[in-house]
């Protein structure tokens, strides 16, 4: 039996369906991320797991027990909010102790557990501080300790890193993940940041407009997107217009240059115009390597980003971005220089028809 199960979950507000037919089974100890743009229903789904919203239809089970209609304070769930939500009138220690105190634990047990938790988040000296005396990253670690102190069955993280600086975001990301692994706690993480989702998760649930678009491991979602939305939302993508020459062999032309598309969503009909997708990192400049697709173009733009040089190459109507690593021995080409770009057929993905 799966540890956390969401079965046919639906949420309707008046005329709006916010979440539609959401099915998910999460293993004990698994780290699952809900990824999607704002308004896609990911937060609503999380809030239904927490008990702040009641599903219009469907069931939620934790460890085999139906919790669909249980109040939040009876679910034994830990939650971390985007804006920390520490109680401003309590010290760090009192914040961490809150869940234990309302559960009626002895003050001795509470003190011991609070000490443990402060050690876990590496803020053992901060027990007497008030939230306003802490940095954002420290506050969020305290919030994490507070959520974990009650030994919850499930940990919910609602965009916990969005309010933080880039640097702290990165280090806290790793800290959360390693803490989660060592405690083996089943975790649902909500974010709109695909990089966070890709780097942290065991599995990602990509959502759009209330629907689940794809569920899979990061590698799978990134490399084998099943819908146009997933392809364009996860990672950066060049979208080109191509005309199908021979659907059976995947031959298409882009601005009259013929290439082979190795993968396709749906069947290709000869003569139809389709969108094709190509990741910037799968394109090589000037035929380095033996890639079977090659196209001629002109450098339109060069941006030096440091480790990476991003270039824009125009064919005729279409243009692509491509990334090359910085090489001190080989300065990037000038604007206007003619170049050849090459890529493998399996990197070129024909997306599903526009009508969808």
């Amino acid at each position, binding site marked *: 039996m799966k540890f956390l199960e969401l079965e046919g979950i639906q949420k309707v507000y008046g005329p709006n369906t916010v979440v539609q037919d959401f099915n998910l089974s999460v293993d004990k100890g698994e780290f699952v991320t809900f990824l999607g743009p704002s308004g896609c229903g990911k937060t609503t789904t999380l809030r239904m797991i927490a008990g*702040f919203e009641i599903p219009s239809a469907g069931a939620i089970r934790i460890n085999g027990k139906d919790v669909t209609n249980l109040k*939040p304070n009876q679910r034994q769930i830990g939650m971390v909010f985007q804006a920390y939500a520490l*109680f401003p009138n309590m010290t760090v220690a009192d914040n961490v102790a809150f869940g234990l105190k309302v559960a009626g634990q002895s003050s001795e047990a509470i003190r011991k557990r609070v000490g443990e938790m402060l050690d876990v988040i590496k803020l053992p000296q901060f027990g007497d501080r008030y939230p306003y005396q802490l940095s954002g990253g420290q506050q969020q670690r305290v919030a994490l300790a507070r959520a974990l102190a009650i030994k919850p069955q499930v940990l919910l993280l609602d965009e916990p890193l969005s309010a933080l600086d880039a640097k702290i975001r990165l280090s806290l990301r790793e800290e959360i993940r390693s803490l989660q692994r060592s405690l083996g706690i089943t975790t649902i993480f909500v974010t709109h940041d695909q990089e966070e989702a890709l780097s942290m998760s065991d599995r990602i649930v990509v959502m759009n407009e209330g629907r689940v678009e794809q569920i899979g491991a990061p590698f799978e979602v990134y490399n084998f997107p099943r819908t146009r939305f997933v392809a364009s939302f996860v990672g950066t993508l060049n979208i080109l217009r191509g005309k199908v020459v021979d659907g059976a062999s995947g031959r298409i032309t882009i601005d009259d240059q013929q290439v082979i598309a190795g993968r396709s969503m749906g069947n290709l009909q000869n003569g139809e115009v389709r969108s094709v997708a190509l990741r910037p990192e799968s394109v090589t400049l000037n035929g380095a390597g033996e890639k079977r697709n090659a196209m001629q173009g002109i450098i339109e733009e060069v941006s030096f980003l440091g480790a990476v040089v991003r270039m824009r190459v125009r064919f005729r109507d279409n243009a692509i971005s491509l990334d090359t690593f910085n090489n001190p021995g080989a300065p990037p080409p000038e604007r206007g220089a003619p170049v050849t770009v090459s890529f493998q057929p399996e990197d070129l993905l024909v997306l599903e028809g526009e009508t969808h």
Partner: protein
Amino acid sequence: MVDQSEAQAIAIPAQPAPARASTFSWAWIGVTPFLAFAVLFLIAPTLFLIVGAFQDAQGHFTLANLADLAQPSIVRAYRISLEISITSAILGAIFGSLIAAAAVLNGLPGWLRPTLLTFSGVASQFAGVPLAFAFLATLGRTGLVTYLLNTYLGFNLYSTGFNLLSFWGLTITYLYFQIPLMILIMTPALDGLKREWREASAILGASTWQYWRYVALPVLWPSLLGATLLLFANAFGAVATAYALTGSSLNIVTILLFAQIRGDVLHNANLGYALAFGMILITGVSNGAYIWLRSRGERWLK
């Protein structure tokens, strides 16, 4: 333009003076008119009365005026004033907070809140003489509510000993501006309660009561305390409503002072000063207590 040339003088410090000292003093000139106004028309008159309270008619130091405050009629006036102010402040604080909470926290229709705030803005300023008229027309001997109660419910309000010109009458009247004032102050404070705090406490297992006990009330406490104090001072210093309602028949300290200023009813000019000093002392001490309570209990405030 006069102010322009004057202002340029501010901008360009006089040359001979050392630079640092001159920037310091020139910056102060910007607030001099305000400080002069405050000293002349706010602080000095108050100090004048305080000093006068400790002087006899010849200007010698004495504590006799303060000792004279102990006469029964004055003590009674202070007591009734304090009772009315405290009662109307506490009741106003309770009802005002409850109404504000009802409008802010629960999903009542959206039009309610702006309506309530606008109305509170009006009602909190609708004090003084007209308010007395309104309550005479409502709960006076010939007032509408008195009449309706008597005619349709057979309930004679005045036979119960109720009198608009009494402690409870005045308190009920004062609540007409106290409650809206509380609503106006508490609404932004209640808005400051983040939804996440409630959710965080719920998910940690706390009941609604525990949320209020451990989180919401402690967070609101400074605002509650400060607002209640303001209500107290507001009622304590009120003259017009009581005067228009009761003439000088109700013996509260502001009316006593009013009569004293009008004509020397206490037969000792400096006793009037002492009376005023007593009022300043009471509002001053209550403010001091408030500041002390806050600094002691609210270490979490920035």
